[in-house]
């Protein structure tokens, strides 16, 4: 039996209570809406890309603790990275959250490793992946919105 504290780690609760980069970004180069129709989580992710680099990233929206914390941690992790690095991180995080045998060691992912416990809660995985799918869409396509369906 997994423990509740594996899911709601202090770090996750801290990001939920005080989400980082929780703001509008009028000069964003991309703004994408992410929607989880199953539970109503809704966020808008902003990125400002210049010279192949994610100069700024922020989000607004409503959602559960896991989706808000995941988005908040994403903004901290991705800012300053190149687009390629950010995309690689998406792949790694997706794998960490959805795979039974993730390739990456959560310990190597820094604070993002705190989200690893979500894997034990199949009903909640989409909460954690929402912001990452939204980031992927922002970086790799022209779509204006994405859903977790």
């Amino acid at each position, binding site marked *: *039996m997994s423990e*509740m504290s594996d899911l*709601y780690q202090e770090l996750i609760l801290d990001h939920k209570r005080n989400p980082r980069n929780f703001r509008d970004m009028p000069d964003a180069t991309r703004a994408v809406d992410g929607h989880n129709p199953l*539970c109503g*989580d809704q966020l808008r992710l902003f990125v400002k890309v210049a010279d192949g680099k994610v100069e700024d990233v922020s989000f607004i929206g409503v959602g*559960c603790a896991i989706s808000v914390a995941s988005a908040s941690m994403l903004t901290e992790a991705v800012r300053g990275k190149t687009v390629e690095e950010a995309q690689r991180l998406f792949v790694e995080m997706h794998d960490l959250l959805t795979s039974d045998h993730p390739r990456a060691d959560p310990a190597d992912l820094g604070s993002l490793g705190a989200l690893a416990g979500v894997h034990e809660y199949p*009903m*909640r995985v989409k*909460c954690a992946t929402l912001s990452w799918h939204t980031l992927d869409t922002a970086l790799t396509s022209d779509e204006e919105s994405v859903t977790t369906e």
Partner: protein
Amino acid sequence: MSAAILSTPTDSWDVERVRRDFPVLGQQVHGYPLAYLDNAATTQKPRAVLEALDHYYRHDNSNVHRGVHALAERATRDFEAARESVRRFVNARSSREIVFLRGTTEAINLVASSFGQGLREGDEVILTAMEHHANIVPWQLLRERTGIVLRVVPITPSGELDLDALPGLFGPRTRLLALTHVSNALGTINPIEDIIAAAHEHDVPVLLDGAQAVPHLRVDVQALDCDFYAFSGHKLFGPTGIGVLYGRERLLEAMPPYQGGGEMIRTVSFEKTTFAGLPQRFEAGTPDIAGAIGLGRAIEYLESLDWEAAMAHEARLLEYATERLQAVPGLRIIGQAGAKVPLVSFVMDDVHPHDMGTILDHRGLAVRAGHHCAMPVMTFYQVPATSRASMAFYNTFDEIDRLAEALRYAREMLA
């Protein structure tokens, strides 16, 4: 909080004895005894229903209304006996008025599709703002096909229908009023007797979505004088996959078939097909025979209970749950109608319903988190989702205590 004020109530209902009829309730979840508080989503099945399903497949499995062999005869007899049980349960005049379908959703789709064929562009159907999506979307599909107009009875902040608005919605082109008997998201019991009477004054027939009503209220379609009544077996302690449409015989007789196939015909040639009479005309294909038999058995089980005592117990559960939950800091109950089934929808400051659902699950408490397929209700209350504890006669006051305690814990942890 003072324990003296909220001491656990007692009543004459022997809940522990009834619980023993439901094998699933005896299990542990995450190390806690299961407290199943998601009965508005689906109810648990008494042993009698499980045994009826098993018996059917073990001894009588055969197709119905065909075959002259012994098994076919037994299957047909039990299937039609189940129809008679349903007729008795809702007090329809004739079993010809009882159509077996997959569930409430299919029953409403049947009416929208078949009764809807008689509707023309500009004809009007009245719905309400507290409908389940199952009583919204079929009418929107019909609107796309034919250009009907949908009118909506609004709701008040307490979660009741704003009946002052109803008279103004009837017009010369109103063809049907389709509304829920009991709200699945709010628990509200609508005053359908008055609503039906008002509709009939305008010669408008009424369809009731009874999915949430039949487990909690005695339904008498003749006393109600409703024209269609839809409900699901699985919310009535029966199997999934079986549901019922009651239809007033005169209306059903005039309606075209819903689906074509076997069972629903009298004769078929490539030139012309003649259709079977009621209710087979609306039951194309092999029906869910075991499901119908299981539903019949569920009804017999309910009839064996002291219904008055069961309903008194449910009323006490609702009162107790409302009191206990209202006392939880930061908690707001959504839907405070004067008449409710034992269902409490709520939100908590700073705790999203999905986090709530996960935390409660870890304490063995099964509740529903989400929009409850009633997104217009969520929009009205400006919440993305709610948590919903919905009870049945087998729930206990102790389970409510556990829920209230876990809610306090969730708030301490997340807020």
